[in-house]
């Protein structure tokens, strides 16, 4: 069974697309809509099938909801503009329950049962790592949107790409110099004491120190902790900036207790929006964040100088100026990550067109064509900004946004250069056999 549903949750204006797709499926009405003209000229009008490995249930469901909306919006935009190589794309959604074991099963199902052209869309790192071997064995190109460092680390395989979102190592490097030069030179890192927090602990200091900064304290917090006041005395008095990357349900408690600990004074704060993704920044308990800084993968709030491409992307996905659903102001999006779905689908499109992709027999060609990609210009296909793709590491690098909370919004105060997030590596997937 293939999926012809657009989305349950797109803005109402898109519902008409159902009819268009339905007509397409029936082999009728092709060419009636201007966007479909090119389908008629294609060698085959059979859809290109993209297996969307979605976190519809389980721990990733809140992210999954927005990944699904963005995916469907991008698919619609691509189809409206003529599809890929003159063929429409069809999104086949499989739920992995945010479970690595099921992730591998889903990839297998995509390859064997649905016979998709590529698999795409995985967010959570452990699901990517659990699914990647299956994609490699089945020789199914697998485009993830996870921001994990696992792709560029070289630990996966030749069929796995992350071309639409930068990795965490790049993110934390890029923001270091700006913090040292603009917020404070003496920093204390407060992080959850496991892999995610360790990424920040390990990859942040290098560039920060190069810019004259000094890490004066490290405060690892056990992941099971739900109250934090007793850790705050470990923050050295000389600290000018607290870098915090707490995640999970206790984040709000963390912020509230930090506010109670420092009152109106204390060090400045720099955080990662991962902590508060999909959470209204104006929620009670978060008042202490006013004036503080956050990394954002892509701005949640519409900025005054936003590009037309950014505006068009937001309209297509259905988010308002505050980054919430246009139909539901309380439903805050995962704006810092979900743009990666949009851009990844366009990278797949670009690579398929470069490869002259016709069907599963061309998968190896598609891998090589993806590896040959280098630069993506900012525009409708890459609304977050320009990017540079490294075909050897299978990882893309781009700009990061630093925003300050003021007036109940996140206002961008700095956009890093692509170079700020680059790092040396000798990983080279292209040397591995196809």
């Amino acid at each position, binding site marked *: 069974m293939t999926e012809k549903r657009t989305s349950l949750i797109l803005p109402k204006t898109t519902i008409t697309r159902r009819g268009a797709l339905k007509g397409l499926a029936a082999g009728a009405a092709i060419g009636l809509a201007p966007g479909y003209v090119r389908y008629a000229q294609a060698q085959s009008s059979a859809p290109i099938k993209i297996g969307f490995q979605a976190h519809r249930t389980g721990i990733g469901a809140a992210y999954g909801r927005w990944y699904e909306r963005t995916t469907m919006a991008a698919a619609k935009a691509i189809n409206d503009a003529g599809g890929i190589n003159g063929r429409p794309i069809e999104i086949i959604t499989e739920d992995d329950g945010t479970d690595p074991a099921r992730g591998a099963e889903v990839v297998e199902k995509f390859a064997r049962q649905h016979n998709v052209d590529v698999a795409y869309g995985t967010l959570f790192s452990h699901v990517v*790592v659990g699914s990647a*071997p299956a994609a490699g064995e089945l020789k199914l190109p697998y485009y993830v949107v996870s921001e994990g460092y696992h792709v560029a680390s070289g630990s996966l395989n030749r069929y796995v790409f992350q071309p639409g979102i930068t990795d965490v190592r790049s993110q934390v490097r890029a923001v270091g110099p700006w913090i040292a030069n603009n917020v404070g030179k003496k920093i204390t890192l407060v992080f959850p004491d496991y892999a995610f927090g360790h990424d920040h602990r390990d990859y942040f200091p290098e560039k920060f120190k190069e810019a004259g900064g000094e890490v004066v304290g490290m405060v690892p917090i056990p992941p099971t902790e739900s109250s934090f006041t007793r850790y705050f005395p470990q923050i050295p008095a000389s600290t000018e900036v607290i870098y915090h990357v707490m995640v*999970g349900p206790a984040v709000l408690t963390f912020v509230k207790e930090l506010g109670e600990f420092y009152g109106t004074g204390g060090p400045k704060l720099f955080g990662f929006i*991962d902590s508060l993704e999909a959470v209204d920044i104006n929620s009670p308990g978060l008042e202490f964040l006013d004036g503080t800084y956050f990394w954002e993968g892509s701005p949640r709030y519409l900025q005054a100088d936003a590009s037309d491409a950014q505006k068009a992307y937001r309209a297509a996905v259905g988010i308002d100026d505050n980054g919430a659903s246009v139909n539901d102001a309380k439903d805050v999006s995962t704006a810092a990550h979900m743009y990666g779905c949009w851009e990844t689908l366009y990278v797949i499109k670009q690579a398929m067109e470069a490869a002259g992709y016709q069907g599963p027999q061309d998968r190896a060609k598609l891998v090589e064509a993806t590896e040959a990609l280098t630069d993506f210009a900012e525009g409708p296909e890459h609304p977050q900004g320009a990017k540079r793709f490294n075909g050897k590491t299978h990882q893309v690098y781009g700009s990061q946004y630093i925003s300050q909370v003021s007036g109940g919004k996140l206002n961008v105060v700095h956009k890093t250069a692509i170079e700020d997030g680059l790092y040396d590596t000798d990983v080279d997937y292209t040397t591995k056999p196809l």
Partner: protein
Amino acid sequence: MTKSASRTAVGILCAIAALAPAAALAHAADRGFVMLLPTGHYMVGGALAVLASFTALALIPPEPLDRLARWSARLLRLPVDGRVLTSTLSLVVLMLLIWCGLKGSRDPLSNPLPLVIWTVWWVGLTLLVGLFGNLWRWLDPWYGPARAVLAFAGRRHAPPLAVLPRRIGAAPAILVFLAFAWFELIHPAPDDPELLAVVVAAYWLFGFVGVLVFGHEAFTRQVECFSVFFAMISKLAMLRRGDDGALHFNLPGAKALDAASLGLSGTLFLLLALSTVSFDGLMRTFLWLGAIGVNPLEFPGRTVLIWPNTLGMMLAFATLAGAFLGCVWIGQRLAGRRGTLLETGAAAGALVWSIAPIALAYHFSHYLVSFVLYGQYALAAISDPLSNGANLFGTAGYHVLAGATTGAESAWVVWNLQAGAIIAAHVLAVLMAHVVAFRLHGDARRATVSQIPLALLMIGYTVLGLWLLSSPTGF
């Protein structure tokens, strides 16, 4: 890659993933907002409310309460019994849903089967049954079809082909419900449309054969766990069918007091129902995840937790059953009874009805958020059941308002509804237990004394319920 090889690889890689650099996106979610509320005060308040109810009951004579429980008001005469028709229609709908599961979208939030089974039927129907009576008697998809088959075979009035031993009581239903709870709470993919379609179809067939062989009455009383469950929950309802065939209104829980003592298997069944929904809450907490060595900020998925959670679910059942039966036994001893096995069993079978409102309240509180969210998905999915662009009821393009369940405001509303339900249910439980004890002992003082251990258990369970709904969770 073979499935087993793939599994092994996944296992190894999950272990690597735990060590590898990783992006963690555990969502601050709505539990975070609940954690900012003064939930500790609610726990103290809830415990005091239950304690105060018990104390008040000790001071006032139980006779008026007993009379209140027996009161009912006649509402209207019921029309003819349409069960054959409704049951057959129910089967038709079920068959359509199974078809959707097999042929519809692979997305569990677009396919109507998982949404209708888990959200509309399991969550929604249970609440309706608890409020208004045993609608499942009308909707069970076996009654009508079985009558038709038996009539066709000329065996409509013939005795069943086989007889279930009465002494095993509802023991088979306990096993069937355990299997159901395991599938719901522990199996990695209960939402998978195709798998669920197969499971639902297989269960319907199991029930149909059972009903044909053992007779509908016996099979649904002893084996078919949902008939057993809904029959128990319906005893809380405010509507009942009187001996005169008319519909009567009574106070919540009053019907349960007139119900027969449940016997050991029925007692254990009801305790199992409560323990599974309690464990569903517990297994998400940082406390449980920490205890089984899982980083709650990096929830590894359901597959690797199958064994610890299976053991946990059994342990939760054993703990609750042990605590309840122990409290009944101590109560009997305090009231001057000998506390023999038979006597304790009989008392437990009567007193266990007081567990029913707690089970219903846990059900309501535990599933409230998912009901509001996934109920909306269900509304959209039924309009386009095969995801081919249909719009049968005009709701196919419905925009799911996820914001209804997110943010500080909704967290406050949800928490107060949950806490209110939990506390009210425990107060009702204390009331019900008191009337049952009065009827058992025929004496106000002894009834009160016998209830002290159970009242303490109720206070403990109130606090546990509120804690489960307010402590940090990993998924």
